[in-house]
């Protein structure tokens, strides 16, 4: 693989860095609009048509703000955790096929599903470190909550991600996506539903948004952050949400593949990918709106006593489907 212009374009522009960034902001706007409409509000309206530029304006505003580092938090972790977390999330995104191939020109290999899931956990760990290094009690409690929640939900998430891999008989995300003639969400709906719930916890959204429960611990792990670092911390969270939704699309909704009507397949694939992803975001926002926040002990009970056994059961059921039912249909 030589470093040619096409490669640079695909990493930096489409479907790489700039696309991911703009798409993240677009999704943020969609989320805010949906949540507002569900709650009888109107949401952003001022910046750009229907407020579509609001996330960008918020990001730019934070970039111009004063960057304060608390005296006790003058350490390398506090400074670099937001940037590292953000860049790992974006890097992980490059492995997902968006327009049929992924950004690093089909650098997909057997087992990149495991790599992606691991990178997501590592990036989450950096979110924990960002709070832990702030030496603020709110941040400290928020950070321990991130970690407790991560421990509770990573295992079910991994188990549930194995179900599509088993059906596709492959651990490469691109192969899993392309092997879905019928989307796996229809073949194994139980795994799909559980994956969405586990993801909701992974993304710290209601009913599992305990790490930044503002009425209890103010900003959670991001309490001490300001300016540029806060901008990147928030952006990292947004990229994480889109990344999580993208994983659902790749694993359960047939990835970017869909009918090509005319012209370039790349265009249609990207379009299908975006539409499917927005559908996932709508589901996730709906869940956010109709639930109250659980308590951290209730979250842990839900993860260890309910979700983990259920995801093991779901794996067993998936194996049953894969071994007996699908061969029977031919």
């Amino acid at each position: 693989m030589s470093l040619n212009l096409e490669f640079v374009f695909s990493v930096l522009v489409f479907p790489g860095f700039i696309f991911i960034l703009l798409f993240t902001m677009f999704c943020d706007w969609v989320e805010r609009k949906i949540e507002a409409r569900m709650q009888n509000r109107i949401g952003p309206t001022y910046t750009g048509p229907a407020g579509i530029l609001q996330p960008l304006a918020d990001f730019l505003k934070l970039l111009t703000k004063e960057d304060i580092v608390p005296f006790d938090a003058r350490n390398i972790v506090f400074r670099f955790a937001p940037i590292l977390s953000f860049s790992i999330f974006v890097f992980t995104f490059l492995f997902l096929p968006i327009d049929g191939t992924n950004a690093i020109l089909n650098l997909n290999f057997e087992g990149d599903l495991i790599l992606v899931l691991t990178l997501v956990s590592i990036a989450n760990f950096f979110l924990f470190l960002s709070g832990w290094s702030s030496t603020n009690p709110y941040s400290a409690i928020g950070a321990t909550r991130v970690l407790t929640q991560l421990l509770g939900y990573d295992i079910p998430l991994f188990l549930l991600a194995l179900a599509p891999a088993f059906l596709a008989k492959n651990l490469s995300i691109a192969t899993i996506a392309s092997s879905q003639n019928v989307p796996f969400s229809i073949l194994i709906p139980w795994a799909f539903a559980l994956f969405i719930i586990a993801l909701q916890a992974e993304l710290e959204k209601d009913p599992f948004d305990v790490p930044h429960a503002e009425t209890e611990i103010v900003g959670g792990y991001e309490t001490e952050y300001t300016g540029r670092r806060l901008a990147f911390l928030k952006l990292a969270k947004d990229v994480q949400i889109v990344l999580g939704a993208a994983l659902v699309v790749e694993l359960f909704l047939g990835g970017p593949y869909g009918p090509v009507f005319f012209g370039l397949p790349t265009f249609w694939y990207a379009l299908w990918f975006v539409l499917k992803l927005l559908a996932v975001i709508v589901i996730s926002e709906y869940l956010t709106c109709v639930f109250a926040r659980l308590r951290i002990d209730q979250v842990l009970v839900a993860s260890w006593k309910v979700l983990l056994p259920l995801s093991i059961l779901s794996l067993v059921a998936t194996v049953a489907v894969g071994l007996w039912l699908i061969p029977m249909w031919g």
Partner: protein
Amino acid sequence: MANIEHEFALLLSKKLGGKILQTGTLQPDKVFVRVDAKAHKDAIAVLLEADENAGLSALTGVDLGKTLELMYHIRTHGTIVTVRTEVPKEDANVKSITDIIPGANFHEREVADLFGVNFEGHPNPKRLVLSDDWPKNLFPLRKDAEIVIPNRVENGKADEQRLDGDKLVNIIIGPQHPALIEPEKFSLKVDGEIVKEVEPRIGYVHRGIEKAAEKRTYLQDIYLVERICGICNACHATCFCQAVEAILGITVPPRAKYLRTLILELNRIHSHMLLLGHAGFEVGYETLLHYMWRDRETVMDIVERLTGNRVIASFVTVGGVRRDLPSEAIPEIKAQLASLKEKMSFYKHLFESDPTLKMRTKNVGVLSKQDALKLCVVGPVARGSGVKMDVRKDEPYAAYSEVPFNIAIYSEGDSWARLMVHLDEVSESINIINYVLDNLPSGSYRIRVPRIVPAGEAISRVEAPRGELFYYVKSNGTAYPERVKVRTPTFANILSFVHIAEGGNIADVPASFVSLDPCFSCTDR
């Protein structure tokens, strides 16, 4: 009329004998006993013994020149019996009654702050309403206190909020915090996620309204006391006006009584819906907040139709109310209330069935009936713990003696029960308003009263949305009151927060706190 009260006087004189210096009445149905400064505790103990539901309603201090008078207003059998005692100003020491009534804790600290009375044996004699850098020997409610902007004095170091060497983390909620809409401070000592110790501190919005009321005429005071709390402003105005009317010895016309009932119930719906929405926000259920507060607008519109103002109504005045309700507005208001009632039954279904909401509020912040009585809580907090207490029934004022209504009581004593009390009361208030609109008497809606009020004193109680609101007004025969004492419901309830938060989860602090329906602009005054 005043049989129960005189029974108390008889009982007291029988048990205490010669210690009683004087027995009399504040107003026809409010009896008081004057005792020696050393005997007040015995007198209160006798009253507590006679009624297990008795509690301290308020503690009023009055500056009499050479001495300071302390009035312990004991709530018993639905009425108030006052035990008064005097201490010399120079040597103001009395025994604390916190060991027999733990709920007297904050009352005594407030009087200590404002009058400089030293309560011997108080468990936590710290500043409560005055700021820590207020001069040591300046007691603002003493008549001889010269209030100039005081020089700031050095005070101790502020509580530090950091990870200590030991396991406990000191977390400070407030004075500015997303869970609190008003400034107050709670220092929590937490071990992991468990709260070990709570130390409340109020007074961040202390405006000295009781002092300001002494410098204004009775008419001006109506508008002043309304501004103690925006949400239940009509309750404050009504309570103050009732006290002044009692001193004047007048009764307001029946139409005014009904119109007062109307605005008081509108206040209650407004306040309760505000709280229920806020409770949703505190447990991370923002959709509920937005829906509740949207529907609350109905009430604001009705208040505007009735009084001309959306929030501060300026509706109740001494001698009646200031505006009449035009008859063509009645069907409009009834239609609006009918749609609100439908929505409320949906919310009640939601609170009864939503699993996440129940997980966050059931068995959270439990206050047993016994503790509720011990801590002298009032209003929905008491009713959520199974204490049957409602001034509207116990001592009917305005038109409540003629209006049929039920008291909502839950025995669980948790946050959920308290919120359900609020929900039920909104429906009941809508019924009351409908009854009032149907049976509105004709006739005049206010009578003219003299500006000069004869010397005398009176106490008045109103069931505000948050519970029993208590006023004591003393007149010296001029157009200016001698003393106006306000004891707001939250002031009585806030001590119970310490009790229910300790031993609980950090995540439960907002959920149990909000169910007490705290209002700190009321509490600080």
